[in-house]
């Protein structure tokens, strides 16, 4: 840098100019680095899809997606969703064991599929003892998908649908308008199939995309659909409000552009714009200072 130094009238101004030059140079390097970093990292960031989104892939019924071990699921990306103890007044509510549920989602022309997989060493599939409880998982979607209800099982204004599978083979479809209010639909429209292998449950749930039944969520919508999950570990005597729950996630069921390419373009444009504005500003400041001197 010293070779670029211009000759000055006295040593004081020389030192001052030198400081200005140095700071401009540091700024330019920082911006250059930012561009490099943005270019390098942005694709990695955006390939991780928007927060709390569960992508919905297309699947053919011929590939038997209802089977938890079907190859149809090999190409469907899985979202690992963290779980935490639900806030609840029941005894031992904070004592839960399941920390993550892995969720995949796909749709055929007619049906919507969810493949849920979580770690549980013991398959607790019958409750014939008074102290025995079964493993279970539930999926929660708003009845009215245009508004997000309270996550703890909705409320009376904005109830939720629950698809509940328990390891004794029972599947229930429930309506709830707040904790303690679950009411069973007379006929469940949700199919489930499950397997327990290598200390993991894998459960596939499916339902018709369309629904015109009262109180049953229609998935034939052009918007994001909120979804949340709950898991119960039977051998830890988990039931009711003693459960591991997720926060709200969503299925991108809107018709707009979706996924990494669209996001990547947006991020690139935004990044370039920010960098450009910064460069122009610094340049202008530098010129202004040069003029006054």
């Amino acid at each position, binding site marked *: 840098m010293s070779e670029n130094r211009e000759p000055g009238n006295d040593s004081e101004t020389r030192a001052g100019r030198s400081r200005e030059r140095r700071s401009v140079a540091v700024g330019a390097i920082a911006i250059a680095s930012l561009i490099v970093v943005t270019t390098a990292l942005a694709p990695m960031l955006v390939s991780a899809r928007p927060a709390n989104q569960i992508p919905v892939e297309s699947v053919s019924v011929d590939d038997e997606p209802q089977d938890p071990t079907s190859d149809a699921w090999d190409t469907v990306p899985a979202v690992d969703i963290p779980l935490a103890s639900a806030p*609840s*007044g*029941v*005894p031992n509510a904070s004592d839960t064991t399941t920390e993550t549920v892995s969720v995949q989602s796909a749709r055929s022309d007619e049906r919507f599929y969810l493949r849920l997989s979580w770690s549980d060493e013991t398959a607790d599939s019958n*409750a*014939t*003892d*008074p*102290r*025995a409880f079964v493993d279970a998982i539930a999926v929660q979607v708003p009845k009215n998908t245009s508004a997000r209800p309270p996550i703890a099982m909705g409320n009376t204004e904005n109830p939720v649908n629950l698809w509940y599978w328990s390891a004794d083979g029972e599947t229930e479809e429930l309506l709830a308008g707040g*904790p*303690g*209010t*679950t009411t069973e639909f007379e006929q469940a429209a949700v199919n489930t199939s499950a397997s327990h292998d290598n200390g993991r449950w894998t459960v596939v749930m499916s339902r018709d995309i369309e629904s015109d039944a009262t109180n049953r969520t229609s998935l034939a919508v052009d918007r994001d659909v909120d979804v949340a999950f709950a898991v119960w570990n039977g051998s830890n005597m988990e*039931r*009711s*409000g003693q459960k591991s729950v997720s926060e709200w996630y969503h299925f991108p069921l809107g018709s707009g552009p979706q996924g990494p390419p669209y996001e990547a373009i947006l991020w690139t444009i935004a990044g370039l714009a920010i960098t450009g504005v910064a460069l122009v500003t610094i340049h202008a400041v530098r010129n202004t200072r040069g003029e006054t001197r």
Partner: protein
Amino acid sequence: MTAQDADAGDETVDIAEGIDHQVAMVMDLNKCIGCQTCTVACKSLWTEGGGRDYMYWNNVETKPGKGYPRDWEESGGGWKSDEHGERQPGQIPDQEDYGEAWEFNHEEIMYDGSDQPLRPDGDPEWGPNWDEDQGAGEYPNSYYFYLPRICNHCTHPSCVEACPRKAIYKREEDGIVLIDQERCRGYRYCVEGCPYKKVYYNATQKTSEKCIFCYPRIEGEGPEGETFAPACAEDCPPQLRLVGFLDDEEGPIHKLVEEYEVALPLHPEYRTQPNVYYIPPFAPPQHSEDGETVDVDRIPRTYLEELFGEGVHDALDTIERERDKVDRGGSSELLDMLTDTNPARKYRLEVFD
């Protein structure tokens, strides 16, 4: 007119808020012979099959003893204080503590000509009444008595408070505690919350079930439209039970519980305020080694106090005093009530109409 109206300004009976009347039962432990007829009456009416085989909504256990389910008195539940704000944590008993419903070798003995003794299949190590008649103390001063138990239909039922779905409730007209089988999802918080362990999980129905105070009988839902007392009471050979409303001031229950205070709740320290009351048991005094009667209680008062609370001393003293009065040729309303054999007075069925 509700009980509260009747009692307004005349503070007497403490029944639950929002309840018109409170069913109650008094059981005189001095009359119980441990025959289990009440148990069988209840079982054959309500808990045969359908996942209910192990359940005894009514049981009779030997005291001192571990009871049914085993060690239920150590299983927690109830309230931490008389404010009824915070519940005491409780446990769901193990199946082994209830005991299984045994299968017997009837087939072999009755039809196949086996000369084996009649016995249960398998090798059970516990069951209801496993310690029957065992009691405590040493010869010649051993002692025991029988304790029939049903749901106490408590004034402050901790089972009701325990349910996150409000599936278990105290019904308004008579305070009977019932489980709405449509709402129950088998979480069993009521099972662990009841300190008397009188709610049972039905693994076949996947719901919890309990004593219903034979409400269809007291409502006159029988074949002839007649009203009956609960089956455990009606079928009791020594007729040791009184049935009615606690707040029916004309009935013997109110007099025994509220006026004479000789009928006591079991384990009042659980703070649920039970509505089954017991006349505490008397026993002959202890004997010396050479067979002489000595002036020492055979059933230790401390033990009775553990079961029935501090009130047991006054209760026993009151009964003894009234007895002496009758011995001297006097009359006693209290002893008349305790020895009454008139079903119409023992079962105040008219109050249920």
